[in-house]
């Protein structure tokens, strides 16, 4: 296949992705009560988190050497990709039910990659809340903590947000693929794993070694907030260089996920005979 063919293929896929996703978003808006309840629930959830932070910094000035505004940057860096993922690729969270109900059959007889069909299967409007809260915190945090903006920092920020988004999508697939191996409708593992992202909202310095390893290696959420923040805020630590490794971590996660995804597709048993 030539480059131009690949490129037009990519463009076609991007357009289709947007169309499929738009339908999900419209569906959300169609169920009006559900929509507002969802917005309310999401606001309460993130509001509670904020109240906690504000109360915390009412008592202390620094947390592991990080000021309140610097922690706001971590918060922002965590919420932005999480919001984008929720908005544009929440589908993997339906994967287990698709597999268990046999609905997954249908995706396999359409001429679009099943991964894309799964990703666009759900769009959560709650993502808007996370995203705007995240942006607000990031902007406030970076200005109030006296960070100097340069062009290259802006580019770095953009790249690391995109790579964080990639990582979160890969993780969404990874944890929910358990349905192909263990066909039980409920499992706490995916949720528990995803919840570890809360650790990324605070500086790694305050955690025990176990948790440090957990959020760096096992569930590498530190690569979406803590390590990039070390670069953005010019923190002098020996680990600063890991901020540049985020795209690499994402790449590894994506490779692992797509390898397992292919195995999962070949393993898919459907339901009934």
């Amino acid at each position: 296949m030539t480059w131009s063919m690949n490129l037009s293929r990519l463009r076609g896929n991007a357009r289709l992705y947007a169309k499929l996703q738009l339908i999900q978003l419209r569906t959300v808006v169609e169920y009006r009560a559900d929509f507002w309840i969802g917005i309310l629930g999401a606001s309460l959830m993130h509001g509670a988190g904020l109240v906690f932070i504000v109360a915390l910094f009412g008592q202390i000035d620094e947390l592991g050497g990080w000021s309140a505004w610097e922690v706001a940057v971590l918060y922002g860096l965590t919420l932005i990709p999480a919001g984008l993922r929720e908005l544009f690729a929440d589908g993997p969270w339906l994967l287990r039910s698709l597999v268990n109900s046999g609905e997954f059959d249908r995706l396999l007889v359409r001429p679009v990659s099943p991964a894309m069909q799964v990703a666009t299967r759900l769009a959560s409007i709650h993502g808007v809340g996370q995203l705007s809260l995240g942006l607000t915190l990031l902007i406030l945090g970076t200005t109030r903590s006296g960070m100097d903006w340069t062009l290259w920092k802006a580019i770095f920020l953009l790249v690391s947000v995109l790579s964080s988004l990639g990582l979160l999508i890969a993780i969404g697939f990874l944890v929910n693929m358990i349905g192909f191996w263990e066909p039980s409708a409920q499992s706490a593992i995916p949720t528990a794993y995803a919840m570890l992202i809360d650790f990324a909202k605070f500086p790694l310095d305050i955690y025990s070694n176990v948790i440090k390893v957990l959020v760096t290696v096992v569930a590498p959420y530190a690569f979406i907030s803590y390590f990039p923040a070390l670069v953005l805020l010019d923190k002098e630590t020996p680990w600063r260089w890991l901020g540049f490794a985020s795209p690499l971590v994402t790449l590894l996660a994506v490779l692992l996920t797509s390898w397992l995804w292919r195995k999962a597709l070949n393993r898919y048993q459907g339901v009934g005979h």
Partner: protein
Amino acid sequence: MDTNAAPIIEAKGLTKHFRRPVKEPGLKGAVRHLFRPAYADVVAVEGVNLSILPGESVAYVGPNGAGKSTTVKLLTGILVPTSGRVTVNGLTPFENRVENARRIGVVFGQRTQLWWDIPVGESFRLLGDIYELPDETYRASFGELIDVLDLEPLLRVPARQLSLGQRMRCDLAASLLHRPPILYLDEPTIGLDVSVKARFREFIRYMHRERGLTVMLTSHDLGDIEELCDRMVMIDNGRIVYDGALSEVTTRFGWERAVHLTLTEPDESALEAASRALGNRPGAVATQPEPTMVAVTFDSRETTAGELIRDLATALAVTDIRIEEPTAESIIRRLYEGDLVFEQAE
């Protein structure tokens, strides 16, 4: 039909085994499974050979759990076979899922492929995008399907508000929009009323005859099979037990006949009397489904209805006699029930 044409669907030694977790009942069993999982190997399809020519219409039948759906899932590329080979349109479906999907249409009777919350018309347009149909092709294909299936009034209705019959019509259109040469229908008429069923069959017949669509149908509705298919493949316990013309089934088991006798009054001893009267007739078996009814099945190669009636009429007080000719439907039903058995297919 060109009998020299290469098969459009071909399976050789197609086999699928499932791994099913074995759990003891209750929470204790579930916990034990968690730590020491045990699995059983379940054979769903075993060594299926199938060759379908372009333009054929094939009914794939068999009792529940025989392996029908599994075969269809193997042919459509949904499942990966344990062993054996499948070729559809010259492709191996599970290796070329995307390419394969462009050239087949699939209707699952119990599932819709329409988007639940958006108007049907928009689902069609989205499918046009998914199949990357050029505008012209889309318009022509869409126009024809709307016309033949009378979908115009439904285009603005979200799928969730459609009746089952309306939904089935829309689903048919959705699976043929990209003009595939093959259509798989998996239990398409489940739950449909008689008139909707008739329209559905008429449409499939039209696409089959006029458009040369290759149709593979699994159904428990024997009407679907008789009206739509010339060829029948029967599977039982994962193996093909019959593959041939539908009409041949009647010839093959045509000797199986029955005489139904209505008695003047309920009679407990009628069955015994009938059996005694039949005593030396080979292959004749009497049953008494109701107190006032006696049915005798017999082998027309061994004995005649006339002889049987003569024997029975003297032994029982009979008001009415009906002789049952075998139909494909009755034979298939009895094959399902295990009353009749095919010798292993040659």
